[in-house]
């Protein structure tokens, strides 16, 4: 009964508040009237009676407030009042409110952005069901890590069923699509049909492969990616069952994958079955180019997996295989995102610092504002507001600001993510999977609340302690407590900013060092063209060689060409070819097979790319199929096997025939600027064995050094197309390829640079704020000093010295902290140590200069003080 009545009263109190208040007013004034009447009856005059009645009452507003305090719904009502009042006061101070909201939005937004990326990429991992059960198999052999599998090895592994529920394999392949418009080379993958089962995904349209489609004769089916379906087939549902021509042969489309499916990489445009029993794989059973992925049987732990893989590895090797192989498993998540782990965490820490700086900044702003509002708060207290009520009201204001900052921050995070994906997605494909989900939203909510508390609680508590007298008198001196808090906050800001800037400077120096690495050749003014030779038009080595000869002659005659050559595997072209080799007279120890990168190259290749020849000569036209077999080795290989003599004339072989070494070339960085070079063996095109050439010669990479690269590019395409109109040709420059190869370090350096700029700006604003405030507090003192004979420059020095005192401690603390924290950057720094002295000296020096700059404006204002007017200041 009581509960029902209370609920009814609650509703009435909230909804009909006006009426309730009016009644209360009437009731209290009625009480006063009755009391007055009673006193008149006792003999007092009307005026005295009324006065006494009011005194007895204790104050009309006070009584009403006491009633309100016990009223049901009072809490909600006051919160609502606080909210409206808070919004009004914030509207009346637009600059303050906007500044706080902006600062918070930057801090919260950046943090939310990085959190989203870390969550999507690192925490959630690959988007397949139970993706933590997916593992890839790799092997190490002497001289080479992280080697792929051969068809024979895969089949042997497939027979072992102890650990894997399903085991699948895939390899990249070029598909020339020639039925929909211009012939276009699409990059796709040959996959065993069980791959989709292993991953646990289904097609969006149609179906995935059936197991029998892995057999020869049934394998001319294909699954399209969503982007190909959209771009080339206009998303027509009738594409299923349609025959399309790939690499000159008819394939039937059986399915289309969902838009977000991009296994194994974002460049996958279509998937076709890998017929492991078919001619392609059977002809090269020992060529290692298969990637293997499997799903663990339930109950198999990662530790057990590794032990089993070790054991099974010994069983799997072919009896005549002398190479010692070490097999191991890597989780798919680790493989896909392992190298992003450290950079992303560093960036996350960086935004954490930024957020803290932002909160410190806002706290300072709130303190300053609370100080300025002392008069208003004192009046509210005098009107009957309890300390608790004042704190609640100030906290509500902080809450409103935190909410606005949080919502704006969320907007920044959303836009920022879209921007990042736009600029970075091509080179950092993992970004494509980053999306804002419930976790990210909860995170934003959490840090907004935490931020609100952090910068709201302090000022709320200090401000509500306002003493009435000092406030109403109009003196706006802050207490020493508040002063010290402000300085402590700036100290924190400067320290954090210093750490962040040192980290940023380290990463920038590292990136600059990376950019300046000598790749071993001269990439300027070099145009490259990648031509894909389709099997049906170039079925054998002879046809490849014919094209090689005619195209080279044609390319060489183009205007502006200074040198031209071809190579099968271009540096930074994404491909390589490792093969075993032998040195005559230096047999390899047991269980070891020497391995080097093989590079069939044409005459003119070395001058075109700008690789220096250290000894001997480069290839000429006379190194043809009838001439004695020759090879050029790079310096690394030469020094390893012939440290004290010239290798010229010595014999080396990678196939049946011994080749005579005729030249030594400089080392070249082939796939990464920050990796070491490999041993390389160059051989002339015509001398490559036929059965090897028709396999490795599928990519013809033209390297053209030209005085006018832009026009040469167009001419090059025309020249190649003239020889074969159906050829798919990709033209780019060497510099562009190198540029793309360092996209990820570039990306993370940009990001930390942006965060550091934000942090530095905020720290400067913080310093500026405190010094400006200090100057206004000391107007009188400055005026007196000036009156007593101090020069303007004395005052300037005084204020700047104060600025220095304020910031030096923070910079020093930041320096020490950075010294200990920079070890976390070890894995992502290139070419400089984590305690790089130049950085650790230059950054603090710059910070001191910037801090002095931040204090300069208020200092200048201080020098303009007119002693006479300043004495009137309190």
């Amino acid at each position, binding site marked *: 009964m009581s509960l029902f009545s209370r609920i009814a*009263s609650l509703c009435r109190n909230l909804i009909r508040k006006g009426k309730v208040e009016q009644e209360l007013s009437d009731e209290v004034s009625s009480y006063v009237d*009755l009391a007055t009447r009673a006193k008149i009856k006792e003999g007092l005059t009307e005026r005295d009676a009324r006065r006494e009645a009011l005194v007895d009452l204790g104050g009309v507003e006070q009584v009403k407030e006491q009633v309100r305090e016990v009223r049901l719904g009072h809490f909600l009502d006051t919160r609502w009042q606080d909210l409206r009042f808070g919004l009004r006061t914030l509207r009346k101070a637009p600059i303050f409110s906007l500044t706080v909201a902006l600062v918070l939005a930057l801090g919260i937004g950046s943090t939310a952005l990085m959190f989203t990326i870390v969550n999507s990429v690192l925490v959630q991992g690959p988007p397949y069901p139970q993706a933590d059960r997916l593992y890839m198999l790799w092997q190490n052999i002497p001289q080479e890590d992280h080697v792929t599998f051969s068809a024979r090895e895969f089949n042997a592994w497939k027979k072992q069923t102890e650990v894997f529920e399903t085991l699948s394999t895939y390899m990249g392949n070029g598909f020339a699509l020639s039925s929909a418009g211009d012939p276009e080379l699409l990059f796709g993958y040959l996959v065993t049909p069980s791959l989709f089962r292993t991953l646990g995904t289904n097609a969006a349209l149609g179906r995935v492969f059936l197991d029998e489609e892995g057999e020869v004769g049934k394998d001319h089916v294909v699954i399209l990616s969503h982007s190909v379906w959209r771009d080339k087939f206009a998303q027509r549902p009738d594409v299923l069952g349609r025959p399309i021509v790939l690499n000159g042969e008819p394939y039937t489309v059986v399915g289309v994958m969902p838009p977000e499916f991009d296994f194994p990489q974002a460049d996958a445009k279509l998937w076709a079955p890998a017929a492991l029993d078919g001619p392609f794989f059977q002809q090269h059973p020992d060529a290692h180019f298969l990637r293997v992925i499997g799903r663990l049987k339930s109950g198999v732990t990662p530790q057990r997996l590794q032990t089993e893989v070790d054991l099974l590895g010994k069983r799997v090797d072919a009896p005549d295989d002398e190479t010692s192989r070490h097999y191991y498993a890597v989780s798919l998540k680790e493989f896909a995102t392992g190298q992003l782990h450290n950079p992303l965490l560093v960036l996350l820490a960086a935004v954490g610092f930024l957020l803290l700086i932002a909160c410190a900044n806002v706290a300072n702003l709130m303190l300053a504002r609370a100080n300025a509002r002392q008069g208003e708060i004192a009046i509210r207290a005098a009107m009957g507001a309890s300390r608790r009520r004042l704190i609640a009201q100030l906290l509500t204001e902080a809450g409103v600001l935190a909410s606005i900052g949080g919502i704006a921050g969320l907007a920044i995070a959303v836009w920022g993510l879209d921007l990042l994906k736009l600029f970075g997605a091509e080179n950092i494909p993992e970004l494509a999977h980053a999306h804002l989900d419930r976790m990210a939203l909860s995170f934003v909510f959490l840090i907004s609340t935490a931020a609100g508390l952090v910068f709201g609680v302090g000022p709320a508590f200090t401000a509500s302690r306002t003493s009435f007298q000092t406030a109403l008198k109009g003196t706006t001196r802050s207490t020493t407590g508040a002063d010290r808090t402000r300085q402590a906050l700036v100290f924190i800001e400067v320290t954090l900013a210093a750490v962040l800037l040192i980290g940023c400077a380290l990463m920038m120096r590292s990136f600059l060092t990376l950019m300046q690495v000598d790749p071993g050749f001269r990439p300027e003014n070099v145009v490259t063209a990648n031509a894909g030779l389709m099997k049906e038009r170039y079925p054998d080595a002879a046809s490849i060689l014919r094209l090689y000869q005619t195209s080279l002659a044609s390319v060489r005659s183009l205007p502006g060409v200074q040198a031209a050559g071809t190579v099968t595997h271009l540096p930074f072209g994404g491909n390589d070819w490792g093969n075993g080799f032998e040195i005559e007279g230096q047999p390899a120890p047991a269980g070891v097979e020497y391995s080097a990168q093989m590079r069939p190259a044409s005459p003119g290749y070395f001058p075109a790319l700008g690789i220096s020849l250290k000894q001997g000569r480069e290839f000429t036209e006379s190194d043809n199929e009838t001439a004695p077999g020759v090879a050029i080795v790079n310096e690394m290989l030469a020094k390893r096997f012939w440290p004290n003599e010239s290798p010229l004339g010595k014999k080396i072989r990678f196939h049946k025939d011994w080749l005579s070494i005729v030249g030594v070339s400089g080392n070249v960085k082939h796939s990464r600027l920050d990796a070491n070079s490999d041993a390389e063996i160059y051989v002339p095109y015509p001398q490559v064995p036929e059965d090897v050439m028709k396999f490795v010669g599928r990519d013809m990479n033209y390297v053209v050094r030209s005085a006018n690269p832009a026009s040469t590019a167009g001419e090059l395409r025309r020249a190649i197309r003239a020889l074969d109109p159906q050829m798919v040709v990709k033209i780019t420059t060497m510099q562009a390829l190198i540029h793309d190869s360092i996209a990820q370090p570039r990306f993370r350096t940009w990001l930390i640079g942006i965060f550091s700029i934000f942090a530095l700006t905020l720290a400067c604003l913080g310093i500026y704020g405190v010094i400006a405030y200090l100057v206004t507090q000391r107007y009188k003192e400055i005026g007196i000093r000036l009156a007593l004979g101090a020069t303007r420059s004395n005052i300037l020095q005084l204020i700047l010295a104060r600025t220095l005192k304020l910031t030096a401690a923070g910079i020093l603390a930041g320096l020490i902290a950075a010294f200990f924290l920079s070890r976390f950057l070890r894995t992502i720094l290139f070419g400089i140590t984590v305690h790089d002295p130049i950085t650790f000296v230059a950054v603090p020096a710059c910070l001191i200069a910037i801090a002095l700059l931040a204090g300069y404006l208020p200092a200048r204002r201080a020098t303009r003080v007119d002693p006479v007017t300043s004495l009137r200041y309190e």
Partner: protein
Amino acid sequence: MKEKKADLLQGTLHLLILKALAAQALHGLGVSNRINQITKGTFQVKPGSLFPALHRMEESGWLKSSWGDSENNRRAKYYTLTKAGRRQLEAETEDWLTISVGITSALRAT
């Protein structure tokens, strides 16, 4: 009349108000006077305590109020006990008597 200011627990105030209104409807000042009367001058309830208590009890459903004319033809808010209020009065009276017997005997013990 000498006013003895004694600390009133809120619970006791509720009990006194219920008792004061048991006989007849009263307005705020009337309740205060009646409490003073029935406690023989021990308790003089100030408006600052009285009004909050009256409103709380009305929200709980023990009192109900209506506006009427007072002695000097001014409008005043009169409170009466509801049925629930009467039940509450009985319950609280019994509680109080039990407590006071217990405490009295405790104080008398040697």
